[in-house]
């Protein structure tokens, strides 16, 4: 019996990495579903990805205007119902602006746009990282100008104490993120934000590794295990 797991990928005006996110979903064995920012319709997908890019040109604050898109009303409701959501880079910014994840992303501390292959250490077990061992180190590209993760000391302490740091930068911090935090998760492990780009590390030909593919195989395994998708 095969199942048809469908993962939605939202396109905002200015999204760049929606295509690569769809490709990563397909390579992992699931079906990508294109979701339009202006529509109140998730087409009953089993999970949602908010991709990287420059939605609304990063005007006002990166991810701020996109967080008020019609589709985000549906994404927020779905997230609260337990539908897994992964925000990559700009998508992470949208999740923080939407209040689904704590903290915020601001201008890189050194003010440069940083684009390089980055080593990360996975620290939390989530629906999107089940295929990665805790403590596993992976290499994925990071490319951002507003990637510095910040929050009050109390929030950072709580995130760390609750085991909600998804991943940390190792071998160098590309943007000055507090406590080298590269990604965070909500308490359920279903709503996850990550600054680096796993969708750009899914094939030997085009990425520094295939480590990123694990994010997409993980959610597939998580959803199949939970009985999602139609049996075909």
């Amino acid at each position, binding site marked *: 019996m095969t199942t048809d797991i469908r993962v939605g990928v939202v396109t905002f005006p200015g999204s760049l990495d929606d295509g690569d996110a769809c490709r990563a979903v397909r390579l992992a064995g699931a079906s990508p579903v294109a979701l339009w920012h202006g529509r109140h319709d998730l087409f009953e997908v089993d999970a949602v990805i908010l991709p990287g890019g420059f939605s609304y040109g990063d005007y006002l604050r990166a991810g*701020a205007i996109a967080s008020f898109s019609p589709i985000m009303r549906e994404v927020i409701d779905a997230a609260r119902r337990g539908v897994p959501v992964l925000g990559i880079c700009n998508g992470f910014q949208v999740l*923080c602006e939407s209040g689904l994840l704590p*903290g*915020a992303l601001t*201008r890189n*501390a050194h003010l440069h746009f940083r684009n390089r292959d980055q080593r990360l250490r996975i620290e939390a077990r989530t629906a999107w990282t089940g295929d990665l061992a805790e403590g596993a180190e992976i290499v994925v590209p990071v490319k951002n100008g507003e990637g510095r993760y910040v929050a009050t000391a109390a929030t950072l302490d709580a995130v760390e104490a609750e085991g909600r740091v998804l991943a940390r930068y190792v071998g160098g911090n590309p943007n000055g993120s507090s406590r080298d935090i590269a990604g965070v998760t909500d308490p359920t492990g279903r709503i996850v934000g990550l600054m680096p780009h796993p969708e750009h590390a899914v094939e030997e030909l085009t990425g520094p590794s295939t480590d990123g593919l694990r994010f997409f195989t993980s959610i597939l395994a998580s959803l199949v295990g939970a009985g999602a998708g139609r049996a075909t």
Partner: protein
Amino acid sequence: MPRVVVDVMLKPEISDPQGQAVLGALTRLGHQGVQAVRQGKRFELEVSDPVDEAAIAQIADTLLANPVIEDFTVHVQTMPTPTSMDRPLAPGRLA
């Protein structure tokens, strides 16, 4: 038409690299008397009379500022100086 000015600044505990860059430039320009610079944003909203202060506060708190990392102040100018915003543009024309 009243103008509402919303000033948005990063919270004091959030470091401001853009302000630091401006300070660096001031120093290089020979201005020794400036000790620190923080950079923020100013929004000017033309609003209908009477000013709905609750609505303005909501606009500021949910869109203009990110309350996780930013603080804001609101000032109402009842007799604002005219700007090019006040003259409607003819279709197809730049101001």
